[in-house]
């Protein structure tokens, strides 16, 4: 029993060790990039899951903050010479503070205003990126100073950086899931009125969950700006990024720690091969449409996601019987 418990807690060390070892064993350029993107999406999905899965509020602002993170990181690099890979956590913090304001506006009331405000926020940031030409360079974008380092090491650097962010995201997701805070978020998802009645400061909980969620999107955005050495309003606010975060989380299992990771590790490689395989004239459009189809199908036929569905299949044995406890023993056990 203790061995099983140890495995249940420690198993992530094994895949982590493999992922750390991979670049030492001849992982080449294409696969290295594939993993970098998968880590980025997985980290953002885990982040999205904290507001969208644990708390049950659909956020469409994570894309806006991905883009905002790209621009803030990019501007600090080009004006102040602050390396993005060092400032990224700070960029995330700045974006989390902006998220607190957005959350304050949208999360005071229950219901649908959150999804509307978060979508509007994404539009507004993209609009500003496009139209504040003096600062952002408009649709031409910003060319960032290149990282001066060996191009072979460069790939490894981004690989390990986003692996680190992903590990941090998973650690945060586990920590939240086991804390009173996480319990409060799930209570809000299940019944916000009762959660409030039982003394949870629902507005504060929701806003903090949103801020944590946003931190990962903004960090990923900032790092990605350096990865491309370039930011523009189309790349930084590509809707497929938002769709991916949501579909990955939903496919993996919303509200679980590992669901979004599983979803990202399944969906991103599939998508890269799909786009590679499709004729380039319609690849983008078919890619978008198929992702939409997957979203509708998962929502309709497997809303609990792969992880929970699999767990249920495996655990399809007679439900554990309650242990028979003598009545007097049960009552006398209470103080």
């Amino acid at each position, binding site marked *: 029993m203790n061995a099983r418990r140890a495995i249940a807690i420690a198993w992530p060390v094994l895949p982590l060790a493999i992922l750390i070892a991979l670049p030492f064993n001849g992982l080449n350029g294409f696969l290295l990039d594939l993993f970098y993107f998968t880590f980025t999406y997985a980290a953002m999905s885990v982040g999205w899951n904290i507001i969208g899965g644990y708390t049950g509020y659909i956020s469409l602002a994570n894309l806006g903050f991905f883009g905002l993170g790209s621009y803030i990181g990019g501007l600090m690099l080009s004006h102040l010479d602050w390396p993005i890979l060092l400032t990224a956590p700070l960029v995330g913090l700045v974006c989390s503070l902006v998220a607190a304001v957005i959350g304050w506006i949208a999360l005071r009331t229950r219901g649908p205003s959150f999804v509307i405000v978060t979508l*509007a926020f994404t539009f507004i940031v993209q609009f500003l990126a496009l139209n504040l030409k003096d600062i952002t360079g408009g649709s031409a974008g910003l060319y960032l100073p290149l990282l001066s380092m060996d191009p072979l090491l460069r790939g490894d650097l981004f690989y390990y950086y986003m692996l680190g962010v992903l590990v941090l995201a998973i650690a945060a997701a586990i920590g939240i899931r086991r804390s009173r805070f996480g319990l409060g978020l799930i209570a809000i998802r299940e019944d916000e009125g009762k959660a409030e009645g039982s003394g949870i400061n629902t507005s504060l909980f929701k806003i903090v969950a949103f801020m944590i969620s946003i931190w990962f999107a903004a960090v990923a955005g900032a790092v990605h700006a350096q990865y491309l050495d370039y930011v523009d309003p189309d790349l930084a606010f590509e809707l497929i990024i938002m769709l991916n975060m949501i579909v990955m989380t939903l496919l993996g299992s919303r509200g679980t720690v590992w669901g979004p990771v599983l979803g990202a590790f399944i969906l991103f490689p599939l998508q890269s091969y799909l786009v590679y395989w499709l004729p380039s004239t319609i690849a983008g459009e078919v890619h978008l449409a198929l992702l939409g189809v997957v979203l509708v199908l998962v*929502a*309709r036929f497997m809303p609990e996601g792969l992880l929970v569905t699999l767990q249920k299949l495996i655990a399809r044995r007679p439900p554990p019987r309650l242990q028979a406890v003598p009545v007097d023993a049960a009552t006398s056990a209470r103080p």
Partner: protein
Amino acid sequence: MLLLQGLVLGILVGGMYALMASGLTLIFGVMRLINIAHAAIIIFASYLSWQLLRVLGVDPLISIVILVIVFFVGGALLQKYVLSALIDKDLSLALLATLGVANVLEGMEGALWTSSFHAINTGYSDQTYHFGDVYVPLIRIITFVASVIILAGLYVLLTHTNLGRAIRATTQNRGVAQLVGVNVNRITMIAFGIGIAVAAAAGPLMGMYYPFYPNSHWGWIGKLMAIVVLGGLGSFRGTLLAALILGIAEQVSILYIPANWAATVFFVLLFAVLIVRPQGFFGHVARESL
């Protein structure tokens, strides 16, 4: 005089905004669902109308009739076989499903019609009338009049028929409506179908007014959401009023600030309303009457 020009154009475009947003508000009313695909469905109708004009020479105003019927059936089927099962389980799943639908339509349009601009051009597209100093393109009068006629029809349907009464009852209180004998599942399906049909009616009009491309629905859904929030979610009257106000605000501000910045009027008002009065103009009135 410039102000009068902005006012007139604002009212004309506001009529069309009202038509575009009314389906969204009707669907929110019966299902408590923000249909993120609403603008994508409008744009899809614009493309179909463009195709009908191009291939069969069907006038966009006539294609409205065809599209309304087809989209009503399509919408009702979507509600019955996809959304209704999700609504019972978890509203946010239904919301995400509409996001999926929006992306399916966008991707499909891009694959079928490329991602470049399209516009519905008819023989009367370029005519303009002058009334004193105010100039008014004929297209804007046509889209306004057509929008008002369709909205009036929708209003009569909602207020003077048994179906409309049942829809309003379902909007106000689903449980009680069921208790007094309304088949709420069926009514929800029909109301969703009507909401989509209204979107289909707006498609050809929007396509005559503005150029469109596959992902332009994102810009539109932002505007439409601002309208329905300003009017009070689920309130038909509030939506009409908010559409007019935002139409006028946009057209007047175009006179004083660069045209691309005028779109921000929607978002500024959206945030202002949510800070000051989150329930919108008619947020509570919607509970008592239409």
